Structures are given as structure tokens and as C-alpha cells.
């Protein structure tokens, strides 16, 4: 396992070695290519991305200070928001203005910053909902169980395997609402995998997660890459990112301001400038920041943010 991880990671590092460290650089084997994507809210331009390519099979982190437009770009790419202009393609197929459901069916599946565990359904039902190709999801077919029971058994088997992998198998009959924040993140990720995606888009997968679970979550994300999936994830903090990502895209004020491998990206002057507005009191490159106190604090911040958002959502 360890050997293959290294191989995979090294191989991607070799592929990306000659990619220039500048915004909008071309990748040897891009799976997502976006051009001239803009999104404005009122007078404010939330996203204005000139050109962006995402390497197939790699873990790409999309980072940037609060309000940089990361989540908005994410929403655009996955069909949850409509751009004012721009085109992008996924595996060569144009995706712009496609509905969120179609995007997901084409193999690009996402999770949400505020977890959307379906609280009043059991963990297992949550998982089953993610499955594709269930004929019983047709209104009329659903009335004839023999037509869908077979597929349902396969789905259940797949769900139980994934739950075991994410260590949620003991919770399978609990309501999802009773899980902890971190467990919900895991459930959401596992549920997304039920669709057998080629690309997984994770929106702040670490926000609000118990530090004990952070490591395991990072491990799971690397696991996805090792299975050959492409991972794009939004994170607003660099320190979670550097250990697992193969490539980092930095956004600020809606634009891509820098790209590069995680080891060197934080020395980029544009990145320092971008972050100075938000976390000027933090030494960005310091690994010691990953100690528990800091993680706790970050977690509290994230929770407070989540809480206030939840209230706004009322």
C-alpha cells in the first residue's frame, strides 16, 4: 500500500514537474479545462478565471483567503450556479450551463462545505441514494419490487463496503442527523463515491472536523487518488493542503493568482500578498501550525462560521 502510494504520488509529481508555476498553465493530461469564466453578483465580480486546467488523477487543492471565489467557482463547475460568461469542459465534453444532476452523472461528483447529510434518513439509506442505475427510481418500475430488488442488493453490498472503509458500518441504521460533524463529512464523501465518479470535488472537507478524524479524512482523500480518481478540493487553510495535494491553485478576489506544487507555492509573492489581507498574523509555511491547539482553534472558527451560516439560511 505504502509503496504504491509513493509510486502514484511520485508519478504525478514527475508528470507535473515541467508545468510552469504560473496561473493558467497547461497540464500534460488535463481532465477539466476552463476558459474565461466569470460570475458577478450585483456590482461585485466573484469569479473571473481566465484559464484553468486540472490534471487528471492528481489531487489539486484550490486555496485562497475568504471571499476569494473558490466556492463560487466550485458551484459553477458543478452546475450549482450559472456563470455570466465562460466555457469549460470535463473529459473533453463541454459542461458549461449543464444542470447539476447531469454534471454529476457525467462523473464529476461534489460534496458541500456545510455537510448535506440527509438527517432524517438512516446512514444506509443515505448511501443507497447515491447509487446509480437503480431502475426502482422510476415511478412506475418502483411498484414492482422484482424489477429492482436485484440491483438493490448490489447497491447495499457496495454501500456496506464503503461504510466499512469509512468506519461507519456500525452506524448504518442510525439517522444521519445523529452523526458527529466529522462522521457526516465521511458519510457525504462515501455517498458521493456511490456514484462511481471519475472526479471528486470536495468543498472544504476539513471544515468542522474533529482533529482526531482529520488524519483519517486526509488518508481517505489520498486513497481516492490512489484508486485513480481525480480530486479537486477547496480549502481555505494551507496547512491541511500541503501534505496531500499534488498541485495547488491559489485564488484571490475571484482570479487565479498562482499555481504550483505545494512545496514551493507559499513562497510565491502573489500568494503572500493574497493572504496578507486575511491571515497576516500567521506564518503560512510553518508546519508547527498543524499542532492540536491550532487545529482546535481553526475548528472552532469553522464551527462558528457554520453556525452563523446556518442561521442566515433560516
Amino acid at each position, binding site marked *: 500500500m505504502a509503496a504504491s502510494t509513493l509510486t502514484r504520488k511520485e508519478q504525478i509529481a514527475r508528470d507535473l514537474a515541467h508545468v510552469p508555476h504560473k496561473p493558467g498553465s497547461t497540464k500534460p493530461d488535463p481532465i477539466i479545462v476552463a476558459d474565461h469564466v466569470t460570475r458577478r453578483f450585483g456590482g461585485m465580480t466573484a469569479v473571473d478565471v481566465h484559464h484553468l486546467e486540472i490534471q487528471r488523477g492528481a489531487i489539486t487543492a484550490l486555496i485562497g483567503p475568504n471571499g476569494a471565489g473558490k466556492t463560487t467557482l466550485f458551484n459553477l463547475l458543478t452546475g450549482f450556479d450559472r456563470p455570466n460568461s465562460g466555457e469549460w469542459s470535463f473529459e473533453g465534453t463541454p459542461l458549461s450551463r449543464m444542470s447539476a444532476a447531469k454534471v454529476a452523472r457525467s462523473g464529476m461528483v461534489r460534496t458541500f462545505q456545510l455537510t448535506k447529510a440527509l438527517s*432524517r434518513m438512516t446512514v444506509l439509506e443515505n448511501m443507497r441514494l447515491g447509487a446509480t442505475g437503480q431502475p426502482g427510481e422510476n415511478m412506475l418500475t418502483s411498484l414492482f419490487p422484482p424489477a429492482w430488488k436485484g440491483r438493490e442488493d448490489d447497491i447495499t453490498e457496495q454501500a456496506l463496503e464503503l461504510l466499512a472503509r469509512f468506519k461507519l458500518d456500525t452506524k448504518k441504521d442510525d439517522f444521519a*442527523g445523529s452523526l458527529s460533524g466529522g462522521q457526516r463529512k465521511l458519510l457525504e464523501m462515501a455517498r458521493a463515491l456511490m456514484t462511481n465518479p471519475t472526479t471528486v470535488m470536495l468543498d472544504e472537507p476539513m471544515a468542522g472536523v474533529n482533529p482526531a478524524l482529520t488524519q483519517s479524512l486526509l488518508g481517505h482523500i489520498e486513497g481516492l487518488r490512489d484508486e485513480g480518481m481525480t480530486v479537486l478540493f477547496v480549502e481555505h487553510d494551507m496547512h491541511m493542503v500541503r501534505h496531500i495535494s499534488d498541485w495547488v491553485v491559489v485564488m484571490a478576489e475571484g482570479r487565479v493568482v498562482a499555481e504550483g506544487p505545494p512545496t514551493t507555492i507559499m513562497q510565491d509573492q502573489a500568494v503572500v500578498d493574497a493572504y496578507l489581507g486575511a491571515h497576516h498574523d500567521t506564518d503560512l509555511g510553518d508546519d508547527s501550525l498543524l499542532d492540536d491547539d491550532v487545529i482546535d482553534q481553526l475548528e472552532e472558527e469553522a464551527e462558528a462560521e457554520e453556525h*452563523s451560516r446556518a*442561521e442566515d*439560511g*433560516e
Partner: protein
Amino acid sequence: MHLAAPQPSQRRRRPAPSRALWLLITAFAALLVTALPASAAAEPACSPDPETACLIGTMRTAAGDPAVGVQLEVVGPDGSETVTTGDDGRWVLAVHTAGEYTVNLDVETLPAGETLRDPTVTSRTLTIELNSQAGALFALGEPTSSGDATAEPSSASPSDTSTDSDPTTETPSTSPGTNRVAQQFANGLVFGLLLALASVGLSLVYGTTGLSSFSHGEQVTLGAILAYVGVQLVGLPLWAAALAAIAIGGATGWLQNLGIWAPLRRRRVGLTQQMIVTIGLSMALQYLFQFFFGGGRLRIVTTSSSPVRIGPVVMSVQTLISAGIAIVVLAGVAMFLMYTRTGRATRAVSDNPALAAASGIGVESVIRTVWVGATALAALGGVLTGLYFQATTWNMGGTILLLMFAAVTLGGLGTAFGALAGSMVIGIVSEMASLVMPSDMRFAGALLILILVLLIRPQGILGRRDRIG
């Protein structure tokens, strides 16, 4: 809008039942249980209108020919009346009181050789509302033991008094001017202004609390009924009755917020749940009005106001004064929202309650003010609308409610000025619609606009897009 079963910590607080509110309404209304004046007069023909209901029937012989000269005795709230079937076998009786009527067939007067198909049933009981008609049928033919004779609507049907007939499909208190388009436009302006009084409040409540209050229509009815009570039963002059109605209306808003809405907010009861509570409240209040005041029309003033001609348009003096009052009050509300501290706070809370609370605005006290203001405005709107339509009924507000929602949605949910603009559009559309469609469908035209707006510009005329999901 998340609402799960109440959290344990929230469960401790139970809202005090709004006993005060019920007491107020009941006490006020209990003083006034009066029989409605009415006189039943037999007329040769009858068409249902808001003051008239028609009892009808047709008698046919077993062979299907009209049964002529059959006598029926109709016993109702105003005594008894005998009718005779005509040459076509039909009988008609116009009545002016809603209630239960018994139709007794005089078997002796049946044509020779004819018998009832069900000889045991010689009388039918009907419950009838004004502005509707009901028939009592007695089938003739070979006697069978079955009861084919049917009363329609059947008295067993649960729908009898739950009908939603509309009082306000009535023409307003103006006689047509020379130019019909100008006249309808002017009527629309006036109706829009009156509607705005009610919908601005609805919009403010929505803006500050997120609640779509379905009981706001009953606040309008309450204003009109209180004015009726003040003028007709207590004998106050109109202005005094109107002021009293506004004061009591505002008081009900204060009590409601205290007794129902504030506790529900404290318990973090979801908005959808609160909305269904307002629906229950709306239904309870509506039938409470019917319980005390009956289903008929209640005229606030019985004298008619003298008409004035302005260019191509004819308006009654009363309508002009009403419009003037509405303009002054709406301008006052606008000034209040723009220039006073509380008004600015209200707009801040509408924009972003969390931010407003964080910047030191007392959100609860703003909401309290909004409830009092909204219900007082609704009461004023009710009084003026009741005058404009010449009468009010127990369900007037329910009919206007949807126009109010249309206005508020059209203007953009939660923006007070949008509600004003929306009301004017709805007022003008619903009055002008009668130029191109049957006048009893004009409200349908206004509601259709609501749906079209949602299709094209869901945020309304003045709303912001980000208010939607």
C-alpha cells in the same frame, strides 16, 4: 428554514396560548350578537347576489313532463313562504338570510296519478349561503323504498358552510364615468392604494421575521367588522369607529406577537411551521367572524356618498377621502421607514437580522413594532376597503389576502416599497381586467400576473435575486 423536532432546550418554553387575543375578540363580539335584518320576499325570478340566495327546484312527472301547480312550503329563519311550480315545473324562492331552510312538499297538490318515488320523504332541509343557490328535488315516479330524492347540495355534505363565495366581486361605490378605461384606471388606483395599506404590513412582517402570514387577511376583515360594529351597533361616528378599529387592530397585533409569534421564534419553530399556524389562525378567525356576524353583508355606512365628476371619471366623495387618507398614511409609513431610527432599524432587520442584531439593534422590539404597525395598517385598510366595496363580510380579508400576496411577491418579498408598487399594479390590473374579461374573473387576472412574474422575474419588481434560495 431548517426545522427538526424541537430541541430539548427549546422544548422547555411553551408558548402561552394567545388567550388574551381570544378574550379580546370574543368579548368585543359577544356584545353584538344580533340577528341580521332580513326580509324574505318571493320574486318571480331570482339571481344570486351578495344579498340574495336562491332556492330552486324543478318538479317533473314520472313521464318527464313538468309538474305544474305543485305547492311547496319553505320554512326558514324569516318565517314560511309558499311557492308553486310554474308551467315549466320550476319553482324559485329568493331569500335574503343565510341559514337552514326546510322545503315541505304538499303531496295533495301533485298532479293526478303522480306519487313520490320515495313517499316517506316529503321534506328536504337545505343550508344556504347568500350569493349562492341550492335546489331541493323531489322525484316523482313509481314508489320504491330507496331515497332517490336528493337535496343539493346534500345536507350531509361537509361543504355546506365551508364555501368560499366571494363578497368582493361586487362593484365598488362608483358609478361609471364617461370614459370606461379612465374610470377603471382610477378605480384601480384607489383599490391599489387600499390594498397597499394591507400589503405593506404583510411585507414588513415577512421582511423582519420571514413569515408569510396567511392570517393578515383576517386582520383586514377585523378592521372592517370593528368599524361596522362601531358605527351600526354602538352608534359612533365613522371617524371614531375607524380610529377605534385601528387601535384595536394594532392591539391584536401586539397581543399576537406576544402570545404566539414571539414564543414560536424563541422556540426556533421553523418558518413553514409558523406559516401553517397562520393558516390555522386565519381559518379560526374567519369562522369566528361568521359565528358572530353571520354570512351576510355588513354595511358600515348605509347612506351612499354623493358622486363627484373629475374629468372623465366619476368618484364618490367617500372614495376620494379614502384615497386621500391612504396616500397620507402610506407617505407617513415611508417617512417612518426612511427617516426615523426605528424605521431604519426595521429596514436593517429586513436586510440581515443577524447583522442588525450584532450591531446593537433590538430585533425583537423592531418586530413588535412591525406587528403593531402591520395590523393597525391592515385594520385601516379593512375599514376603507369595506367602505369602498360598500359592505364587508366574514371572508372579505381571505379574498383580498391573495391579492396582497400577489402584490408583495410582485414587488419582491420583504421590501415595503416593492409591496406598495406591487399593490398599485395589482389594483390597476384587477380593475382594468374587467375591460377585457368577465368582471367576476378580474381577481383571477391579478393572480395570473403573480404566476407570470414568478416565471419571468422571481425576485419581483424591486427585490434582489439573492433573496431566493
